[in-house]
């Protein structure tokens, strides 16, 4: 490749900020942007109220599909109106960032794989032993969710999450909806991203490797269209028809075979020999390129131009920021990308960490959540266990949401398909009446009001009687070891929950899903108003001192009412600003 003009290349790598900010314990290897993307500092985090700290921590974790149970963050015995942090909460953000900088050890990964694959005593997969049930065709779309849910916070889980995110963008979608693609392309694209990012390969090199792949060609299909889409997706250059034609000529020897030859990628023995000029600038505004540009003769030259182009990193950043900061102004999104690129962003880990830990994201960004972004963190905060086998969030939860068109969790009905659409997910979560009605219905009826899935209960798991602890209940044998060995493990209310006043219990539920306490108006409506379903259904009692308490073992009934209420609040469906 001969580069005609290099004048637009001005390599600026900003120095990392002297204030490394809160998150990094390993600043030499960690990406700390400055300017608009600067991380929330330790001082800023320390200055927040306890509840705000929980909001910030939960927001960071949710960005990679993780949730934080209230009892992990607060000392429940101190009440929740003005909560006291648990011993680890004051440094949660630091700890979280440290976690996602460190990979899981092989033994842990192997153990999780064993859980997912359901290996028997001989090491062979046994579907009956699998923790989750996957569909045959949809497995590539379902397994990433299972992995993200099972991996503890770590670099491993972080890379799984951002690879899934990228697989849902126009840049790396496997476009399963297209005739020329198949589910295996989804698996290959996702695995490619995980492997490359894990090996710390830079964004430019990843895109250079991806462009000639069969996954990309099955979407582009012709040389001309690989040109069109390469310029649009990776450089943000639209309306470059003449350039795309020249790419088509340079790629004339690369051919995607037709359906009856399984859409294999092939080539001829007649490559182009005449250099083509692309990406010339139109200096006089007449619509015709007249200055600079790049010579390309073969398809590889085009890949090199794109992956080495100055617009590549800003465009990649733009695609991701358009999702993560969807409701922010264009100027703000622009400032975020300028800041990240000028700070030397090089890898996808840099990009996502730069956004997620930035002050602007954590404190000031507010946008609608995608359903998966709601579901996974909420399930974790609810202390859900799929083996409770309750409704749609049972062992089939991931296939229900990713693949099963007849299930109420199916994200396609929310216009939030995973690894399906040729253009990837649209940046702003769809809130048209139908899409949102499906989101609301799934969240309300299949998750929040499905208390059996997270209350804590005894279940038969693979032929064994197991007590699965949850949000309210635990095994009585844990509380009273003298019961160990009796025939059954029965429900006992967790001591901290049992000791809560009704108001604190309501706060507990609000914090779990909304990351805020109930307001005085809400407490009045739920606990004082005579028409409140909690009172009408007689869920309150009084202790020996005459204080109101939640009637024993009615915690799940109260939760069903409170979560029904919360599901009716618009804010439930938002990633919220903390400021």
């Amino acid at each position, binding site marked *: 490749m001969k580069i005609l003009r290099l004048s637009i290349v001005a390599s600026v790598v900003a120095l990392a900020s002297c204030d490394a900010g809160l998150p990094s314990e390993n600043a030499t290897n960690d990406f700390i942007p400055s300017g608009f993307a600067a991380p929330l500092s330790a001082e800023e985090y320390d200055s927040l109220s306890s509840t705000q700290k929980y909001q910030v921590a939960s927001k960071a974790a949710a960005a990679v599909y993780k949730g934080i149970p209230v009892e992990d963050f607060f000392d429940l015995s101190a009440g929740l109106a003005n909560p006291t942090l648990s011993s680890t909460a004051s440094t949660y953000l630091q700890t979280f960032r440290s976690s996602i900088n460190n990979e899981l050890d092989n033994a842990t990964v192997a153990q999780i794989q064993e859980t997912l694959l359901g290996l028997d005593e001989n090491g062979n997969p046994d579907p009956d032993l699998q923790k989750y049930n996957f569909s045959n065709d949809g497995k590539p779309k379902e397994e990433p969710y299972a992995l993200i849910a099972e991996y503890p916070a770590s670099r491993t889980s972080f890379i799984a999450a951002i690879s899934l995110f990228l697989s849902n963008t126009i840049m790396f979608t496997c476009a399963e*909806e297209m005739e020329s693609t198949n589910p295996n392309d989804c698996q290959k694209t996702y695995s490619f991203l995980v492997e490359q990012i894990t090996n710390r390969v830079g964004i430019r090199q990843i895109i250079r490797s991806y462009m000639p792949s069969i996954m990309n060609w099955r979407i582009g*299909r*012709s040389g001309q*269209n690989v040109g*069109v889409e390469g310029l649009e997706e990776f450089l*943000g250059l639209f309306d470059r028809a003449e350039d795309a034609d020249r790419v088509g000529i340079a790629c004339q020897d690369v051919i995607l*075979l*037709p359906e009856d030859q399984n859409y294999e990628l092939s080539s001829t023995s007649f490559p182009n020999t005449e250099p083509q000029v692309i990406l010339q600038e139109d200096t006089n505004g007449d619509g015709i390129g007249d200055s600079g540009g790049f010579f390309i003769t073969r398809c590889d030259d085009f890949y090199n131009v794109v992956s080495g182009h100055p617009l590549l990193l800003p465009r990649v950043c733009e695609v991701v920021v358009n999702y993560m900061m969807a409701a922010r102004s264009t100027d703000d999104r*622009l400032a975020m990308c300028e800041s990240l690129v000028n700070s030397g962003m090089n890898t996808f880990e840099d990009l996502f960490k730069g956004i997620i830990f930035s002050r602007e994201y954590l404190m000031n960004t507010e946008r609608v959540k995608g359903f998966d972004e709601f579901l996974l963190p909420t399930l974790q905060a609810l202390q859900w266990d799929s083996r409770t086998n309750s409704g749609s969030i049972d062992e089939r939860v991931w296939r229900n949401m990713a693949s099963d068109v007849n299930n109420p969790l199916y994200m396609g009905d929310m216009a939030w398909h995973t690894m399906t659409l040729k253009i990837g997910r649209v940046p702003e979560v769809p809130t048209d009446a139908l899409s949102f009605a499906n989101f609301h219905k799934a969240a309300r009826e299949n998750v929040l009001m499905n208390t059996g899935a997270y209350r804590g209960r005894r279940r038969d798991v693979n032929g064994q009687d197991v007590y699965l602890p949850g949000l309210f209940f635990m095994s009585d044998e844990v509380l009273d070891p003298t019961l160990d060995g009796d025939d059954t493990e029965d429900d006992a209310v967790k001591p901290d929950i049992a000791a809560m006043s009704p108001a604190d219990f309501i706060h507990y539920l609000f914090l779990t899903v909304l990351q805020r306490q109930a307001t005085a108006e809400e407490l009045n409506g739920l606990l004082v108003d005579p028409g409140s379903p909690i009172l009408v259904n007689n869920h309150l009692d009084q202790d020996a001192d005459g204080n109101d308490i939640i009637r024993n073992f009615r915690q799940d009934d109260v939760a069903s009412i409170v979560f029904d209420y919360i599901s009716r609040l618009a*804010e439930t469906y938002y990633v919220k600003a903390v400021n």
Partner: protein
Amino acid sequence: MKRRAFLKTMSASGTAIFVPSSLTLQSLVNTAHAAPVNYDAANVDLNQLTAQFPTLERLPQVINIFLYGGPSELSGNLSVIGDIAAASQSSYENAIPGITRLQNDNNGLITPRAFWSGAGGDVMEFLVENNYMSVYRTMFKRIIDTRSHRQSIFQNQKGSTDTDVTPGIGTRMAVVMDRFRAAFDGHPLLDHPDPGIGNNRLLSELILPFVSFEGDTTFFQTDPDAVVPVGLRFNTLDNDFDNPYLRDNDGNGTELEALANLVQSPAAQARFQRVTDAFTSRANLENRIQALSDASNQTLPTVTEVADQADDVDGANVLQYPNTGFADRLRAAVTLAVENPDSLFITVSGSNGLGGWDDHNNGADRYPDRMQNLFEALRAAVKHIKYSGTQTAGVTQTPGMLARRTDNIMINVIGDFGRRCNLNGSIGWDHGNCQNLFTLGGEAMRPAGALGKVVGTTQRVGTVGTNNQVQDPTSTSYDFEPMALASTIYSGVGITNPEVLTADPDMDPGGQGPIDQTVPNDQPLLF
């Protein structure tokens, strides 16, 4: 220099090294966006509409089918296929045997009107022959000749070359109707055939006037400079009229909803506006969908005219749609239009997802079947409309038991763009420009002679043996911009100067007027 050209120059300049070009452009356009749609310059006169079209009983209803990805125009235009095939890089006859021969010549595929038999062409012949449809072969972008999906979809669905931060066609309609509501309130064109709903209605009383069967869509892209009242905002429905708007296990609903409404202050509603609006739509639709669902479960009409009793009726001549996903969507859209006369603008995706017609490959095998399925569904749709309306002899009511004329229901079919006519190495077609408009039904809102013809003539242009060969309008042919279709739709609701809604201050200050539906047939019968 035009404003947009200037902005593009700026975005490509050296200052943009670390800035995504689209973001830079967007940023500049946002700043420069000082010319919002000039709604107030519109003029609305429903009386003029009824004077022009005396049989028009109520406001026109438009079903707009968009073929995402941009279909090849060849299914509806093989008029110069001989020249195209001779100049193509890949052999047409090898890929599609018979494509260059007339139907009466050894199993050729060219129909009398130069449609593609096997790619919907025989159905097109039926539809044109029986005055159900006209085909315009020269919908052509001259002002901005973009071949990008994104820009083309924006241009076609916003009805303007000004696509940056601008509203969709449905939004433009809604805003004008709201601003000129006095022209609509109480007008007989808003009368409803259901006596329980009745006459002398206000614009704000229309039920589901704007509906998408494709989820969120650019057709209803909002306008940052104009507010659409809740009653005129678009809603989304699914094929089966499923009712996810209905809450199950809602025994505590009254109390909890009251508390939620009490707690969510105007400030909170504004803060969470998008979801607040979605909740409002949910509540509005909760009970209305059931009636539509009931209507959709009724038996389809009986086809009584002999000429129509072919292929898509059962033994008792009851109409049947093909068993395809698209037919399900179209049936739902037609059911909505027929059973809810207030639905004025309905959008339907002509593919299962974006990109369905983007045939860079598979031109020979997948495209013809897909086009055939499309037209078989359209044939059922026009019969569904015809045999539901009292304008047809012997018909007294719709399947949902409304006594109404249905000849105000029009269907339009377009896509992103046409494609190149060169068959590429993957036996497909890359992006082009000139495309077909298929327009069906709506006799009561069209001038005489508007249906039953083929308009527009094309020629192959481009270097023989290269990929960049397309069909362009001939120098004497009638052609029109995509914005003309938007303008036609606007004129249907009584907007007498629709070009003001399609204007672009920089690229097209005068805007585009409606399609001239009086242009005569251009396609002589080939045999």
